[in-house]
């Protein structure tokens, strides 16, 4: 967990972004808690039912498939296939359009995320296309902490 407490600095002392970049890379937090920013690359981590293997990205009191009460952490495969999508042209204010909302089958675990690094039109987005998890910085807060989001890019 990234530190959220900051020490007060003298108001006038202001580092330039260049010196800050040299001294210390910005802190990074994942967009959602099931995205793990590991040292050897990012991956998605699900709660897996110990009884039947059903996977959930949020916490469950009991398994929705079999009722089992015990879960373990499971790493989701990073490569997948596009099994459904919509190219979104109208969204809530502030959301950049068009974007591709994809349903991706990652070796038996289905994930929803944007399909990135592809033209957002039906000529380029194809059902069955092979994709791989990719991360990018989706914003930063006032402390300079960066948010890392994930999407799926053509593999």
């Amino acid at each position, binding site marked *: 967990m*990234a530190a*959220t407490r900051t020490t007060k600095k003298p108001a006038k002392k202001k580092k330039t972004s260049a010196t800050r970049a040299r001294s210390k890379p910005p802190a990074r*937090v*994942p*967009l*959602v*808690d*099931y995205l793990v920013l590991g040292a050897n690359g990012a991956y998605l981590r699900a709660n897996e039912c110990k009884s039947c293997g*059903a*996977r*959930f*990205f*949020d*916490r469950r009191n009991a398994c*929705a*498939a079999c009722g089992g009460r015990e879960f373990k952490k499971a790493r989701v495969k990073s490569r997948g296939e*596009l*099994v*459904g*999508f*919509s*190219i*979104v*042209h*109208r*969204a*809530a*204010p*502030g*959301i*950049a*359009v068009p*974007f591709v*909302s*994809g*349903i991706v*089958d990652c070796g*038996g*675990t*289905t*994930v*929803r*995320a*944007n399909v990135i690094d592809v033209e957002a039109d*039906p000529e380029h987005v194809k*059902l*069955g296309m092979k994709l791989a998890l990719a991360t990018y910085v*989706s*914003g*930063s*807060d*006032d*402390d300079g*902490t960066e*948010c890392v*989001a*994930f*999407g799926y890019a053509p593999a």
Partner: protein
Amino acid sequence: MSTDSVWILGTNMTPFGRYPDRDAVDLAAAAALGALDDGRVTIHDMDILGCGTLFQASAGMGQQLQKQIGQTGIPVYNVSNACATGATALRTVIMAIKAGEAEMGLAVGVEQMGKMGLLAGAEKKPSKHVFAPEGRYGAVQSVDGLLGTATMPGVFGQAGMQYAHDNDGVGFEQFAKVAYKNHKHSTLNPLAQYRKEFPLADVMGSPMMSYPNTLLMCCPTGDGAAAAVVVSGERLQSMPKRVQKRAVKVSASVLTSDPYVESGQVQPDVNTLTRRAATEAYEAAGVGPEDLDLVELHDCFATAELLHYDNLQLCEEGGAGDFIDSGAPFRDGSTPVNVSGGLISKGHPIGATGIANVYEVATHLRGEAGDRQIKRAKVGLTHVIGLGSSCGVHILEKAAV
């Protein structure tokens, strides 16, 4: 008629549209009084009231309605079940009659939405001063637009493309034909919110909302109400023959929720619960899809209607593309679907929809549908589905008297 059977005695709906000068209670009252008058009964004959509304679910709509049309002290069940809200209100009354707790009851569905827009999808908030995880997924930013979409045209667009992924012969044009058909059908329905036919090219060329759903492939938001008086077979037997003749038999009333499927946590599964509800309904009614003279199904988006051809077993498994291409669901086809214009053109005031489709089918079975009458209609099916999910299916049959 068997004494344990259940019947629609009267039914009514307001024209769907926008009523800025009336409130939901006014609309509910209009439909409720219309249904009572249609059944030649009064609120004093009712043993139970089921009232469905989604966006005013905590408003005590049933009791507000009673203040407009008669406070008789009967039990009121206010229900809310996404887009299956109206069907749930109807089924609540049907269950009470089947259980022997009521002989006659009133079901009402109502919604006043105005221009609500996309119904989901969070507005992007300005970045917080400091990122802090929020909600069940520990999100530090709004995920809508980053991790796909939660807007309805998008979710149903994805559902359609999943079907296209699994089945050959399904694509943008097949989905667009659904909307072409329903807009065309609506020109004959004076109760529809829109009554305008568009060439297929215009449907495909209208502004893209969420591929493959263009603007003309999405249902509008709107206002309206629908109501039905439900009666036991035993009570109906004691009524005059002319009343019995217009009664419509409820041969099946089924409500399901979504069973677990692997992908359900990221993409609502609208198929499994619909297929299950239809199978149970056919079994209860002792009829098959080939016996249906008309179907009113939940075409919230053109993509959805195509899936439900398959889920309701109107076509061979995987054959929904061929089904629309063959012309089968057009009003002159073998299985007319959404001759009212469907949600796409008749409109979709959410709480009203699951009773308005019963009004439509019952009106055809009675032979009172005017210009849009499906000739010699004897059996019809209604279907609604609400995301979350909930599915209601009713099979209705013409009275044999």
